[in-house]
C-alpha cells in the first residue's frame, strides 16, 4: 500500500485499509439490520442501524470534516482555495437535494405508517449490498487517486459503475416488474415507485458522472494533487448510497405487510 506524504491540507490522506475497515463495519451493520427486521421488527432498532450507517458513510466516505478545514489562504485564485469553495458548493447542493428525499421519506411514513409495501425481501437486501460494495470501491478509487495510484483508481471506478448499473437493473429491471402492484395501485404503489424512481434517477446521474470522470481520468486530466472531478463524483456517489441507507429500511424492512 502506498503511504505517500501529506498531499491535501487535511493531514495524511486516509489509507485504503481504513476504507476497508469502514466497509466491514457497514456490512456487519447491514446484516444485523436485516436480522433485526426478520426476527423482531421494531422500527427504532432499524432507525438506529440506519443512523449509525449514515453517520459512518458521512464521516469516513464523504469526509464531511474537510468542509470545516476550509482553506483560509488569502490568495483567492489558488487551486486550494477554489477547491474548498467547490466542496462547500457540493455540500450545499447535497443538503438541498436531501430535502427532496426527506420529503419523500416523511410522506412515506405519513401515508403508510407502520405498514410496508409488499416487495421482494431477497432482492432488496441484494441491491442494498450491491450499492454498499460499489460505495466501498468508489472510496477506494478516491483514496488511490490521493495516493497518486491512477490505474487502481480507474479499475475501482469501473467496478463502481458496474455495480451501480447492476443496482439499477435490480430495482428498475426486476423489482419494478415483479412488484405485485403498479404505480396506480393504492398509495403503497405510489410511494414505492416514487421513492425508488427518484433515487434511481440520482443513481443514473451518478453513473453518468462517474463515467465522464473515468474518461478524463484515462486521458490523464487528474493528478494526485488536482482531482476535484474524482472527489466530487465519488462524494456524490456516497450521497446516493447515504440516501439508500435510509430508503432501504423505509421501503423494505420497517413495519408489517397490510392485510
Amino acid at each position, binding site marked *: 500500500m502506498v503511504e505517500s506524504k501529506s498531499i491535501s491540507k487535511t*493531514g*495524511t490522506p*486516509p*489509507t485504503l*485499509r*481504513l476504507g476497508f*475497515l*469502514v466497509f466491514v*463495519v457497514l456490512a*456487519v*451493520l447491514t446484516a*444485523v439490520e436485516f436480522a*433485526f427486521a426478520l426476527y*423482531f421488527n*421494531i422500527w427504532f*432498532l432499524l432507525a*438506529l*442501524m440506519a443512523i*449509525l450507517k449514515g453517520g*459512518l458513510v458521512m464521516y*469516513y466516505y464523504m469526509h464531511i470534516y474537510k468542509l470545516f478545514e476550509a482553506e483560509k489562504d488569502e490568495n483567492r485564485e489558488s487551486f486550494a482555495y477554489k477547491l474548498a469553495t467547490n466542496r462547500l458548493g457540493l455540500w450545499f447542493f447535497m443538503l438541498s437535494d436531501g430535502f427532496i428525499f426527506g420529503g419523500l421519506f416523511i410522506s412515506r411514513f405519513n401515508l403508510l405508517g407502520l405498514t410496508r409495501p409488499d416487495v421482494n425481501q431477497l432482492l432488496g437486501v441484494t441491491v442494498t449490498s450491491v450499492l454498499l460494495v460499489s460505495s466501498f470501491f468508489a472510496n477506494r478509487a478516491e483514496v488511490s487517486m490521493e495516493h497518486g495510484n491512477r490505474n487502481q483508481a480507474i479499475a475501482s471506478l469501473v467496478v463502481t459503475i458496474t455495480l451501480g448499473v447492476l443496482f439499477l437493473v435490480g430495482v428498475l429491471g426486476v423489482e419494478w416488474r415483479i412488484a405485485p402492484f403498479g404505480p396506480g395501485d393504492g398509495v403503497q404503489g405510489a410511494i414505492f415507485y416514487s421513492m425508488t424512481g427518484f433515487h434511481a434517477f440520482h443513481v443514473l446521474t451518478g453513473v453518468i458522472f462517474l463515467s465522464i470522470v473515468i474518461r478524463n481520468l484515462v486521458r490523464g486530466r487528474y493528478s494526485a494533487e488536482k482531482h476535484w472531478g474524482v472527489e466530487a463524483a465519488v462524494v456524490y456517489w456516497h450521497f446516493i448510497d447515504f440516501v439508500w441507507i435510509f430508503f432501504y429500511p423505509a421501503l423494505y424492512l420497517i413495519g408489517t405487510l397490510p*392485510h
Partner: protein
Amino acid sequence: MEKKFLWVGTAILALVIFATAATIFYLRSNRAFNGSVINPPSPAADFTLTNQSGQPVKLSDYRGKYILLFFGYTHCINECPATMAILMKTRLLLGDRAGDVQVLFVATDPAGDTPQAVGEFLARFDPTFMGATGTLAELQPVWASYGVTVEDGGETHSSYVYLIDPAGNLRLTYPYPSTPEQIAADLQLLFRRK
C-alpha cells in the same frame, strides 16, 4: 485516523449488541396475546356431534390438545374457506408442534352440511381437520353456548376462531380476519408458558 476508527467501530458494535440484548429482554418480559383474552379461562361447553366419517365426535375427546374451534358452513364462499386456510397456515407455522393443535369445524347449516359435504370441504385444506355436524336440534344448543347467531342458510354474524386449551378452557378468541402469524405466535407463547 485508523486508530480512532477502531475505537469508533468497537463502540458501534457494543451499542448494537446492547440494543439487541435489551430488545430481546424487553420482548421476553412482556409478551401479549394477539387474540382477545378470555379472563378467567372459562370451561368450554362440551358437545357431541357427528364427524365427517359419520362417527360421533366429542369436544372432550381432544383434552390435552389445543383446539381451534370454528363455526361455518360448507357452501360459504369467503369467510369460512378463508378462515380454514388461515388455520392451515397456522399449523404449518407451528412446525413440529402442529401435532398439539386440533382444528375443529362445527357446521352451521344442518341442511347443507352433511357429513360427506363437510368431509369434502375440509379435505380441501388439511386431512387432520375435524368436522362436526348434526341435526338442527343437535346443533342449536352448541351454537347458543358459543354465542353464535345463525341465520337461515348457515350465515353467521360472529365468525370467530375459539382457542381452547388442553384443560378444556376457552382462552382466546380471534376475530376474522386474523393472520396465521398472530395465532401461531399466541400458541407458541402458550407452549412456552407450560
